[in-house]
């Protein structure tokens, strides 16, 4: 049989093509991360916390490190270490100012429905009643974003939050 695509090439080519493509398909099928239970999400730790308990930590942080307001939202400048962030339709709270070249541990929790968050390419799902811990190392002064990655309603695509990194005093 002369293969239509191979034109005048030898019939054996078609068989080799079949075997080659078949082998690649088998490898791709077996290599799916789903089988190994591997996931980019495994890197993110979560812990159970009641909404009221998380709110208390958030409020305490905001009261202690507040440096101003932006459109009615507190602007907070916490020291390196634990930082609490609440996700809700369709914003993250509070507005954050972090120091350059420091290490922080973001605790992010949803206060209403299922949301997602991506910080620096690392993603976590925010299930109500749980907080995700996301280590953040700041670089030089500038801005980086937190984005919701789980569809959460009509304004989902506007759920992007900018974190300001300021030069160390």
């Amino acid at each position: 049989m002369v293969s239509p695509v191979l034109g005048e090439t030898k019939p054996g080519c078609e068989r080799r093509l079949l075997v080659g493509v078949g082998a690649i398909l088998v490898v791709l099928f077996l290599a799916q991360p789903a089988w190994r239970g591997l996931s980019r999400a495994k890197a993110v730790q979560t812990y159970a916390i009641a909404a009221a308990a998380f709110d208390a930590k958030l409020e305490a942080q905001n009261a202690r490190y507040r440096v101003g307001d932006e459109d009615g939202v507190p602007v907070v400048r916490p020291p390196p270490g634990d930082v609490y962030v609440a996700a809700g339709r369709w914003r993250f709270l509070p507005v954050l100012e972090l120091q350059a070249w420091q290490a922080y541990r973001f605790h992010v929790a949803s206060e209403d429905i299922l949301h997602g968050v991506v910080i620096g390419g690392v993603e976590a799902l925010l299930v109500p009643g749980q907080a995700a811990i996301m280590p953040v190392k700041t670089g030089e002064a500038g801005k980086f974003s937190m984005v919701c990655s789980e569809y959460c309603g009509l304004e989902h695509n506007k759920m992007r939050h900018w974190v300001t990194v300021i030069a160390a005093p």
Partner: protein
Amino acid sequence: MPLTGGLRREVAGWSWIAAGSLAVAGALALLLVLSRVPATQVLLPWSWQSFFYTALVTHVILSFVVWFLAVLGTLAVLPLAGMEHIRLGAFGPVGMWAGVVGTVLLAIPAFLNEGEPCLNNYVPIVIHPLYYLGLVLVGGGVALPVVRLLANPGAIRGSVGFGVGVAGGLYLLSLLLIAIAWFCLPAGLDLQTFNERLFWGGGHGLQFVNTALMLTAWVILAKSAFGEEPVPPSLFKLVMASMVVFVLPGPLFYFMYDVLSLEHRLAFTDLLWYGLTLPPVVVGGGLVALLWRRRGSIRWGAAELALGISLAVFIVGGAMGFFLGASDARTPSHYHSAIGGVNLAFMGLFIAVVLPALGRGVTSPRLVPVLFHSYGWGQMVFSIGMFVAGAAGVPRKTMGAAAQGLDSTLKKVAMGVYGLGGALAVLGGVLFIWLILTKLLARAEADHG
């Protein structure tokens, strides 16, 4: 060979669903534009704020889901032509009429400005009883001719029949995934989250369906244009069957991972990465080789133009898929270009194959090239503009200079290019709808005249 009798009526019915859904989607797109212009939004009989998202959801469901499923409905009939005895024959007309009624029901809430819109991925929803009923009727209506095709093994032995059979099998699997999600999702969930997760797995399955249909359309068009297939039939069947093998474990994901977990979401995303890459590469590679070998003697008719431009636009869209960001405009640029490639193949299918099979071939020598060039290249320019804008930081699904953050020359130029390409693509789309509708209307006049 023109179709006859009941099969011809079924194909005509699915063609009406295809063209009608695109026409209504186009009208809604126009209303969407009017609803955002201060001078014209006051002319609408309802508040533009509430109308906008309901109309947007309906526009997407008609132009993206119903149009593609109507192609599946059409193709599920064609391989049966010429068969003396067809098992489950009644499934065809019942399915077609369910599709007609369902499509009408889907559009009603938008024009009544009723229901709560939900812009979830793949199968966006207007939370309204008529919309849900329409979705069930369209979904079930397409399943019936698919089941009939699979019940007639003689019709799915050749490459085209096999390709349609694979697309049909993938479609039934997608419906199964949606049904399993329905049972797995907890009660009392927020409806936006519920709809997102309800259609997540099945929506990914539908992308396999769309790809299978496009690859089959490429084979049909290549046979029509050149009298040969892009790849050997055995290779074509191998890569098509592989798509079923990849989606078959989909139901397992619901038992491996919580339906609301990130792992569940990523498992289906990975399914596209691992299962949907090679088939278009193999068939597209064969098509490139075929076009190259025939380059000196190609007569650029409808089938040849559809093949060539569909391939080019799909390749660009596929390549963009490897450079996506998080929630910026690169994601829609990727899928608009990939969908553009699929649309071009389907447009070619209707003009070069379906209309002639209905005894209404397109004879206009000027309109067809204008249609393909303007839609195809317009869609490509539109997508490239959107991709560059996304890479520069413009977020997806936002409108207005402030929300899009158009604070640099690059972003503004990219969005300008995007607008120009979009206008060209709209022109091509309008020409296609006009062409199909006039041909279908002419057929009705001829039949009754």
